[in-house]
């Protein structure tokens, strides 16, 4: 009975994190973007600096009519937001935030593969939405999503493989147990490749041409309204949390801090994740959108060679150490 309670409690904690962290990132994005652009951002909802803006947004979305276009493929159209959102919930289960068995939802033996595999499934949601909407802008968005995923899955996987080689394991807690501070400069190229490829997979600016609102009107999500649209937005922000958490765990040492990991390890994980999330927002404000061909060129001529070079470097250093 105790085991059942333990599992239920872990899943509950993961679920609460899944519901709150994306909202916190979203609210931070509102405020940070506003201040970077010389505005105040939301100020009224909830009283103190508009902290409840996203709660109010959620209430608004829930009240809106849920429309399915007449020519759309009903079932696929309605299923798509769930397919886009749920994988991120599953990924959160496997990310360790502190040392020891207690600080991870579930230890997965092949953690890196689990995480990357399930994240790839989330993109199917965008593809389903793009095709089932019976809208040419949505179809273009879906096509761009697929092209982008195919281009960026490879460098992401190669960069993650480099860390797995360095640690000699593919389990996420195992990688963190093997972490040393000098991995930071050793794996820095892989970290950059992983982070950039992850941003592209999430379709965040400057890689947001699949949803480019000024040319193809939010791509695959053009026809969505109300709660289903909100679910797609939530998936995007849950994706930011997952990507930042993963980069922290794989490349930035997770719970390891300059003054040891005793007791406050989870705080280090959260702090690093938060800083990365800030970086994601900062990039959105700073860079214009890439063109589709520029994006493909970046993936195949820059990121893939860099990731391969990182793997070669990891192999050489690893052999030299042994």
């Amino acid at each position, binding site marked *: 009975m105790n085991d059942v309670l333990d599992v239920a409690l872990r899943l509950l904690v993961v679920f609460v994190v899944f519901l709150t962290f994306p909202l916190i990132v979203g609210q931070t994005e509102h405020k940070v973007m506003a201040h970077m652009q010389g505005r105040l951002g939301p100020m009224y909802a909830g009283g103190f600096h508009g902290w409840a803006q996203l709660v109010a947004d959620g209430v608004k979305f829930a009240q809106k009519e849920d429309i399915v276009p007449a*020519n*759309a*493929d009903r079932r*696929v159209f309605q299923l798509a937001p769930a397919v886009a959102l749920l994988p991120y919930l599953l990924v959160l289960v496997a990310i360790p935030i502190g040392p020891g068995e207690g600080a991870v939802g579930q230890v*997965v*033996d*092949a953690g890196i*593969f*689990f995480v*990357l*595999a*399930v994240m*790839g*499934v989330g*993109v*199917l949601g965008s*593809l*389903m939405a*793009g*095709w*089932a909407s*019976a809208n040419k802008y949505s*179809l*273009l968005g*879906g*096509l761009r999503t*697929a*092209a982008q*995923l*195919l281009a960026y*899955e490879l460098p992401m*996987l190669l960069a993650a493989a480099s860390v797995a080689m360095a640690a000699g*394991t*593919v*389990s996420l807690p195992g990688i963190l147990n093997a972490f040393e501070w000098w991995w930071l400069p050793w794996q820095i190229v892989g970290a950059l490749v992983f982070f950039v490829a992850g941003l592209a997979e999430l379709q965040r600016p400057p890689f947001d041409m699949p949803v480019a609102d000024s040319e193809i009107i939010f791509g695959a999500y053009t026809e969505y309204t109300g709660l289903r649209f909100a679910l797609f937005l939530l998936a995007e922000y849950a994706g930011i949390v997952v990507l930042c958490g993963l980069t922290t765990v794989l490349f930035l040492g997770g719970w390891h801090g300059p003054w040891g990991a005793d007791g406050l390890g989870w705080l280090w994980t959260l702090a690093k994740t938060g800083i990365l999330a800030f970086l994601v927002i900062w990039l959105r404000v700073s860079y214009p959108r890439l063109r589709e061909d520029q994006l493909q060129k970046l993936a195949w001529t820059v990121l893939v060679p860099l990731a391969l070079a990182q793997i070669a470097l990891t192999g050489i250093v690893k052999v030299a150490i042994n």
Partner: protein
Amino acid sequence: MTLGPPVTLAATAPQGFLSPTGVEIAFLLVGMATLGAAVITVTTKQLVHAALWLVVALGGLAVEYLLLTAEFIAWVQVLIYVGSVVVLLLFGLMLTKAPIGRSPDADSGNRWVALAVAIASAGALVWVVVDAFRTQWIDLDGAAQGSTEVTGTILFRHWVLPFEALSVLLLAALVGAIVLSRKNGDAETAEAAGTPTSATDKEQR
């Protein structure tokens, strides 16, 4: 895809078919769901639905691997097949403007021949697998026998040569594909420059 249930039946029978364990029952049920999804994949007239049912079938296979404690294989299955191959399929279907609803021409005159070939190959595979592994048992309660470490050790100790041979084969296929596409690309641009179809093709890409 049709492998799942028959193998279990053959495997569980000598060890007590009347009192199957929970894992065996789950394996059987998932196997039937996978088989069902696979049958729908090849019989549905809606092209994109076929691709999506393929996702269900491949996901079901991954669950089967998980139930057999082959965790690493399961996640690689999801990563490669669901994450990349199906996305590529959907990409292709979108380029061909697969209609919503039934495709009138999604039917082949060869369907009975195809059925015969499918049944023959499935029968051969089931026969080979059952014949080869009928006396082998996986101890599901002990340490995982399909963990990443075990899989890696077996692959790179005992099966290095087939592994490397397969890599060379894939590399050859890759190089071949690049050579073929380059040749076709040159010819197309040379002869079809300016025709409306090639223009829309380029726009879509």
